[in-house]
């Protein structure tokens, strides 16, 4: 029984680690990786924009500071969207 358990675990481990070598060259995976990274950046940027707006509404960012910060954040968001468009 002990040997059976060890052999089963060994086979599963080997199958698991060699699987990537059996399906090589999947370019779409690489592409979707960059896409996912940009999507994550887009969500993070939107959260920053929302945070800044709430900070402004609750009195922790002055009007000029908020406007300046908001413009910068939105410009960065646009850049991310542009890069996303290029990929898509």
């Amino acid at each position: 029984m002990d040997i059976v358990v060890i052999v089963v675990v060994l086979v599963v481990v080997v199958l698991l680690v060699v699987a990537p070598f059996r399906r090589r060259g999947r370019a779409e995976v690489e592409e979707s990786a960059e896409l996912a990274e940009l999507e994550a950046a887009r969500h993070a940027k939107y959260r920053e924009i929302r945070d800044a707006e709430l900070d402004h509404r609750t009195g922790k960012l002055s009007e000029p500071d908020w406007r300046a910060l908001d413009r910068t954040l939105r410009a960065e968001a646009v850049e991310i969207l542009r890069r996303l468009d290029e990929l898509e």
Partner: protein
Amino acid sequence: MLVAGQGCLILALGVCFYGIGASLYGARTGRREWVASGRRAVYALAGATAVAFVILEAAFLRSDFSFAVVTSHSSTTTPAFYRATAVWSSQEGSLLLWLLLLSLWSSLILFATRRRLREIAPYATAVLLGLGAFFAALLVFLESPFDHTIGPVPAEGVGLNPLLRHPSMMIHPPMLYSGYTLFAVPFAFAVGALVARRLNADWIRSTRPFTLGAWFFLGVGIVLGARWSYSELGWGGYWAWDPVENASLMPWLTGTAFLHSVMIQEKRGMLKVWNVSLVLATGVLAILGTFLVRSGILDSIHAFGASTLGVPFLGLIAVMIAGSIFLVASRAAELRSAHRLDSLLSREAIFLLNNLVLVLLCLAIWWGTFFPLISEAFTGHRASIGPPWFDRFTVPLTLMLVLLSGIGPLIAWRRATAANLRRNFVAPIALAGAVLVVALLLGAGEHPDALIMFALAGFVVGGMGQELVRGVRARRVMAREPVPLAVASLVRRNRHRYGGYLVHVGMAVLFVGVAASSSFADERDVELTPGASARVGGYDVEYVRPTSELVAAPNGRLERIDFGAVLRVTRDGRSSTMVTERSFFPSAGPMLGPVSRFFEGEATSEVALDAGLRRDVWASVAPDTRRLEPRVKEGDKVFAEADDAGALPARERDLLLAEALRGLVRSYTDAPPPATFRLLVSPMVTWIWIGAIVVFLGGLIALWPSPRTVGRRVSAAYAARVGREARVPA
């Protein structure tokens, strides 16, 4: 199944080495299939470790005494729940649990980032597998849970340490270990980011749930430990600045600092060196915590020399510290901040100050914890540091911390103006002033530290309440929602912010409980005979009568002797009854007699506790068993003579022993000796547990992932706005 378990551990060790090689080769050559194979080695490590853990768990549940670790840590009379959790009461089982949790969390983060952080992830994989290899090697070569019991397999085991037979104590270790192992994730990704020179905030965002999770689990573990200490140990406190307690608190403090300072890096691109140093230090402190718990280095300096784990752990910690310093120093140029601090009156400055206070707290605790070893190294004798030393440093620093936790969420980013300060600080300061006056009127003035803490807590609660009210108002203006819906929407859409605010409120409540209970407690140690009473904290406590019981397990095996006391507690004409006990478990020592071994083994306290929002009445008893000693010795002598003569069959001997013990137990209640009681009336202890629950509720809110549908709707709305405004030149 001993061979199968050991085989799985060897496979786990092998797969760690393979995964490290594959990940590094893939990262260097850019061959993605090798990186993917390295990542899958982490999944394989989790699988092999899980199988080993299941084999060990099954052995405990089946009471398979062919496993040496089961024989030494369990018995057939141990209840099933405690048999299941006895796995991690042993050194070997707890190391296996560490490896299992590390491999599970590592698998989760690497699966979540499998299409992201491509430059960083392979190096992080190698670091996580390196830690995995360390623990797998300890299990394979030094502390195997799959060793066979020496000699013939016994019919019965030693049993679980009685002190650990408490529900919270059995959940406490997995919580602490989850915290420690989760902190390995941001540590590994920080190393990966430094090696790959990808030092923007991407890795911080991806690992944030794991950092928050580590903070959450470690915090729950710390509070469960405090609760266990309060309700199970007979000294009446919840925190003793014990080395093992300190070991868990230190990474929690630096982790808390990191969770705050990363916000500045994300928003302003500042503090990169500080952040990466903090997360690396937290990772090292998490390993140091495990080392302190498992090695016993600070319980006995001599145990350190004899420990099989001390040297490997010190080696790992040395490598982690040296590697961290080298990486940070060699990446100094890339870690330069994008911006400078605009003003000392800004949220950034307050966060920085909060970080300094947290790190100073950690340093003070580190020094106090290791001072016995340091003093021995330099002077040859071991000097110890007690709670008064810790209090001298931690009390002022904690007061400062609570103040900063109130200021931080209220002050403006970049630069606060006079108008901002007026608008945000007047109401919370007014509430703090009101709390101060009420506390003074209630007589709290004799303890200035506690008085300041109460006022600061009022400031924090006032500030957070004001933030919620303003946020809800803003939400109602925008969405025209009723108040309850506006609160729910606001919190749902800003989980980090409002979860964090709730954590601040919970911490303030918790520290109010700590300040009140440590400053205004009334404690007495008294010796009472039945019918006598003592007065403590305005309560009359009468020792009504003694109790005693010989307790047998369901299979008939004699398990313990309980000596206790029934107390009547009276205040203002109202009475209640409380019961406290001291349980004596038999020692397994072969040199002890069959009767005396019941009085020479482990003893645990069952405290009497009447808890309330205003105060706790707490009592424990230390029965005087000296009067029983002549009868105990006589009993040992009779059984020794009978054993020598070989006159008693085993079954008859057991029955006679039970009868002798019953006689002893009866004699305690028939002619009760005086008993020593510790009586404690402690105000607002319950606030500590309520505060902790609020803290963890806040942590859960911050941790909870946003629903996908909401995320899409919000994304779409902002995408439209960003698109519109993109056409307008800045």
